[in-house]
């Protein structure tokens, strides 16, 4: 067989050509006007010896001119853009102003960073057009919920916007409609409608607000989910089985339905058998932020328990309230399945060994006779 030693020498080094590169401002917005001439200054953040090349990309990049083509070690530069007399497609168009480190080492594998700041040119929609966004906070029962509806007039004509908010519960049933008013909004401007919801007659739970803005030539909508809380900590899960072996961890998963922080939350666990208390233990206390889910960790001494099923009572204490649930706890032997598999494995091994010895002896006897 032909033996050939193949020696291939490959040098693979990723050399640091750049560490950090930045551009500011990070973004610019402009509303389109025919033949509009724009001029922006940008600042580049780079290491002192870095060579940086400047470039334009994205839409209308051919309309961009730079006062410099490259920089060394950061600095400032200006771009000029003359927009065309017409852009057919309405909406946002992005011109990207970029800075890229110049790779000079061609013999190595290197890393290069590029950063791009978009100039967003917004072309108005024909006629009347609006886009809407909605914000809402969570609250506890009785506390106010503030709604803010931001309406942008993005067409080339002004609009008259009438704004309502519909409130739906978790079953998607409409609870009420709030009227936020009517405003005239010039094209390329925006207006904010505000309303406060009184929640004293609301049940705790999850809700959804739907903002509906009627601007004559159309309707714009936006939705936002919000929650109304009450002082309650829910027990969502807990350890249902422990192995009988010394001290074992016991977890209780809890969830706050309150819109504020709750301090000093802890659980007491009562392990009972036939209505007699066997063990009681308590978890360390924890803080629960608004709507937060957390796991309380306690420890149970299984040496005091026998194999079998026990009754559980878990009581979570918080502020001056508590939540209690009943459950079951199984105490099991350590890895029973592994134990049985081990026994079966040993039996198979002994039988195999016996057969092997028998066959070997028989083979030896046959050889002697020959």
């Amino acid at each position, binding site marked *: 067989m032909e033996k050939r030693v193949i020696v*291939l020498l490959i040098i*693979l080094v*990723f050399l640091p050509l750049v560490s950090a590169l930045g551009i*500011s401002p990070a973004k610019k917005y402009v509303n389109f006007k025919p033949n509009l001439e724009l001029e922006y200054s940008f600042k580049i953040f780079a290491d002192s010896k870095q060579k940086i090349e400047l470039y334009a*990309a994205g839409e209308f990049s051919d309309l961009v001119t730079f006062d410099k083509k490259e920089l060394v070690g950061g600095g400032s530069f200006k771009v000029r853009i003359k927009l065309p007399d017409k852009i057919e497609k309405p909406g946002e168009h992005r011109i990207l102003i970029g800075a890229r480190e110049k790779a000079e080492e061609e013999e190595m594998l290197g*890393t290069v960073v590029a950063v791009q700041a978009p100039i967003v040119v917004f072309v108005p929609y024909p006629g009347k057009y609006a886009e809407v966004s909605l914000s809402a906070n969570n609250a506890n029962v009785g506390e106010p919920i503030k709604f803010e509806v931001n309406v942008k007039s993005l067409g080339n004509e002004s609009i008259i916007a009438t704004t309502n908010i519909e409130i739906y519960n978790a079953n998607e049933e409409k609870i009420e409609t709030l009227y936020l008013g009517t405003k005239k909004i010039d094209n390329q401007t925006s207006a904010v409608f505000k309303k406060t919801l009184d929640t004293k007659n609301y049940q705790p739970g999850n809700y959804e607000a739907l903002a509906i803005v009627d601007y004559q030539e159309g309707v714009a909508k936006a939705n936002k989910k919000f929650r109304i809380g009450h002082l309650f900590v829910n027990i969502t899960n807990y350890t249902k089985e422990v192995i009988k072996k010394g001290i074992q961890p016991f977890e209780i998963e809890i969830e706050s339905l309150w819109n504020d922080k709750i301090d000093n939350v802890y659980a007491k666990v009562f392990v009972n058998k036939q209505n007699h208390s066997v063990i009681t233990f308590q978890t360390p206390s924890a803080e629960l932020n608004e709507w937060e889910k957390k796991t309380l960790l306690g420890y149970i001494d299984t040496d005091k328990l026998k194999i079998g099923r026990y009754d559980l009572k878990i009581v979570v204490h918080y502020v001056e309230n508590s939540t209690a649930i009943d459950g079951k706890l199984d105490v099991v032997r350590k890895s029973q399945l592994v134990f049985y598999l081990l026994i079966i494995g040993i039996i198979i091994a002994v039988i195999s060994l016996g057969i092997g010895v028998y066959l070997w002896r028989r083979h030896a006897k046959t050889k002697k006779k020959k």
Partner: protein
Amino acid sequence: MANQEKKQNFLFYAALILLVFSVVIFSMNVIKVLKITGRATGTANLTIEGKTQINFTIDNIDWGSGCVDAGKPNATLNTAAGAGNAVINGNWTENTDGFRIENIGNQNVTLDLKTGKNAQQLLGGTDPDYEYNVTNYEANSCTPPAGFNLGTFYDVNTTNPGTRICDVFQFSDSNDVIRIDVKLVIPSDSKTGAIGDTFTVTATTI
């Protein structure tokens, strides 16, 4: 005596001039202070500019020099494989760090990744591989686009603007670092000598 008297007069007038000068300067300062404190209301204008900036906090993968083991069809160099498995069938120096990129600006950005060469151009030979794998070094730093999975190796892309690896690369301090690992499968009949390529990461403000 006459000389001493002249000296005293000189000192007297010098002191007088200095005193007058001091009073004038003091008065000017008092007027300025009064003008400032006299404003009951005012507006403080402060603009914080957005800045898009990223940093290769680990920008160096150094495997040194090496060769494919005799009799083996190829060697695999994988920075994600962990110590002991990072170089298979070769004698290069193991690297288990990969690249690390941090968003040190104050904007969320998209990230695109491209290389200058593909596997064949970089390594040559029979069935070479040149792949990368993106993972969150800090939880939730990178939200990948649909169809691109974190923790999966992909062939490098040499076309502009590269492959979108993060739809959102966050800037918040505890969620702003990703890691890029590189895997090379070097055939025994690959190119020899020093080889070169450029890994370009482009950050664009969202």
